[in-house]
């Protein structure tokens, strides 16, 4: 039996701000427990929220990049429930008036481009972190109050691949505009995926299951596809799909039951009385929108028109914003963008991988890379020689100095090469004889001997040309 698959995704994204959503304590990751908090984050009696402008700005940026309509009247609501990681006993969120509505993001699918609609984006605050030991649970409130946006998609995806592409597109976009770190493995981007299936064409939505704990993009596709198969099996065995929250188990690649959902929890939402509605001025919103960083899609198009890079190379460059930014810096110093791209994606990426670092951490100077490219283009060194300079380049060395130290200068002096060519020919009369008898191999032999004599430093193009000329002369 064929099935329709329906997937909707809710993403929580920590906003990149210096302080919390509602308090002037710093945001943090990996700091000592309970050192990035104040009385507000601990939900001490008598505290009041103070809305962070930068968080609102980042939310406006996210809405803009994802084509949502922005509500300039910002309002907050309370979501009431009791849990030890929720210090106030309620979370301040935007239930009734989200900052953004009705947007979309474009993804690439096997069938071409497709728009996934976004229902809403709203601002809220993160909870504290709990660590479960054998006998105790420990609570660290450093994360409590960190600004979040929740991005809720429409149920527009129909396969694990589409789900993955959607999250990747969001991740790329939000990362590019500097709204979030989007580190799924560290939890700064968290993804809840709802999957349901129903007999093809039935038009009825099946019971949906929510998958949590997806901490890398590749897990999303795997988890969704597993879940689709699991639900198919259930339906085909005549069983019912129950409404469940499941978690993805990395090791087995399966989704595992966390809890059954029994009715809807009543969060008793009501407007937050401590925050009057906040009117964002049209000028402020326009200013943010006029100064948006370049979106990945726009950058892709520009790389094609401006540099003529291949789709493949563009794809790889764009997927790594730091590399892409670096590429752009290098192009300020060289007109040979293609070569710059090749170097970055091949030898330099390989070096970074080996050394387990990233381009923004490396000591490579963009001007030096441009210089290296110029040295090759000018025939001062060969490509093969240049590759020998990668370690120096990555140590921050000037390639000219490094080439000199390594004695890697290419000999392009006609006289010097001519002398070597003559010497080699004089010493190998048999080769000339072979050539005369039509054995073209002889050319390669002589070129090889000349290169050897020059210890590899002669410009191979020049050597080859001059050997051919000399041979022609000698047999005439």
């Amino acid at each position, binding site marked *: 039996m064929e099935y329709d698959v329906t997937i909707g995704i809710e993403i929580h994204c920590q906003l990149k701000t210096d302080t919390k959503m509602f308090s002037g304590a710093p945001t943090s990751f990996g700091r*000592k427990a309970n050192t990035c908090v104040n009385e507000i984050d601990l939900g001490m009696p008598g505290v009041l929220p103070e809305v962070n402008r930068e968080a609102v700005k980042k939310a406006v940026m996210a809405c803009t990049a994802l084509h949502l309509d922005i509500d300039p009247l910002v309002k907050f609501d309370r979501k009431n429930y009791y849990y030890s990681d929720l210090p106030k006993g309620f979370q301040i969120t935007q239930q009734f008036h989200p900052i953004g509505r009705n947007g979309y993001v474009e993804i690439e699918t096997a069938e071409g481009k497709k728009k996934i609609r976004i229902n809403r984006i709203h601002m809220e605050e993160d909870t504290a972190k709990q660590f479960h030991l054998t006998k105790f649970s420990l609570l660290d409130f450093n994360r409590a109050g960190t600004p979040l946006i929740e991005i809720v998609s429409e149920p527009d995806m129909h396969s694990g691949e589409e789900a993955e592409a959607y999250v990747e597109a969001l991740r790329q976009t939000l990362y590019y505009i500097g709204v979030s770190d989007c580190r799924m493995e560290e939890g700064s981007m968290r993804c809840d995926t709802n999957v349901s299936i129903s007999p093809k064409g039935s038009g009825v939505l099946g019971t949906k299951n929510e998958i949590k704990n997806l901490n890398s993009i590749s897990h999303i596709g795997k988890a969704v596809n597993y879940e689709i198969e699991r639900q198919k099996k259930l339906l085909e065995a005549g069983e019912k799909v129950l409404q469940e929250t499941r978690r993805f188990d990395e090791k087995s690649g399966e989704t595992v039951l966390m809890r059954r959902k029994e009715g809807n929890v009543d969060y008793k939402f009501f407007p937050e009385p401590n925050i009057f509605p906040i009117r964002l001025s049209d000028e402020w919103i326009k200013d943010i929108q006029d100064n948006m960083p370049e979106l990945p899609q726009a950058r892709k198009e520009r790389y094609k028109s401006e540099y003529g890079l291949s789709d493949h190379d563009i794809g790889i460059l764009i997927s790594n914003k730091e590399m892409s930014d670096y590429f752009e810096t290098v192009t300020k110093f060289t007109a040979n963008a293609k070569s710059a791209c090749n170097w970055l994606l091949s030898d330099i990426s390989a070096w970074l991988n080996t050394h387990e670092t990233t381009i923004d951490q490396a000591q490579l100077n963009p001007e030096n890379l441009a210089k290296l490219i110029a040295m090759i283009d000018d025939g001062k060194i060969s490509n093969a020689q240049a590759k020998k300079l990668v370690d120096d380049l990555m140590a921050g060395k000037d390639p000219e100095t490094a080439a000199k130290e390594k004695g890697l200068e290419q000999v392009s002096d006609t006289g010097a090469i001519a002398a070597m060519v003559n010497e080699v020919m004089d010493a190998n009369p048999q080769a000339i004889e072979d050539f005369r008898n039509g054995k073209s191999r002889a050319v390669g032999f002589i070129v090889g001997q000349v290169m050897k004599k020059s210890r590899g430093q002669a410009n191979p193009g020049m050597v080859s040309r001059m050997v051919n000329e000399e041979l022609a002369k000698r047999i005439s």
Partner: protein
Amino acid sequence: MEEKKDREYFRKLAHQLMFDLSDEEADGIVKEFGELETQMSLLDQVNTDDTEEMIYPFEQATSFLRDDVVTNVISQADAMKNVKKNLEGHFVLPKVVK
């Protein structure tokens, strides 16, 4: 399907609010609940058909937003000041049973 507003109903409600009620207290609420319904009828006598909820005393929108600058961080010792025991600067709870 109105649930019966008896002792057990309110006790269940109390448990959602993370506290318990004695029989006497629960009965007290049952009684008070009847009075609440009487009071509600006083509200119902006010026609609010075209009236919006009044959520705040003053309804003119503000424009103030806080600058994203660290203004107030407390020490770990202060964070732990109101609990008897902590483990390496964490609040400690017996294991949450799932």
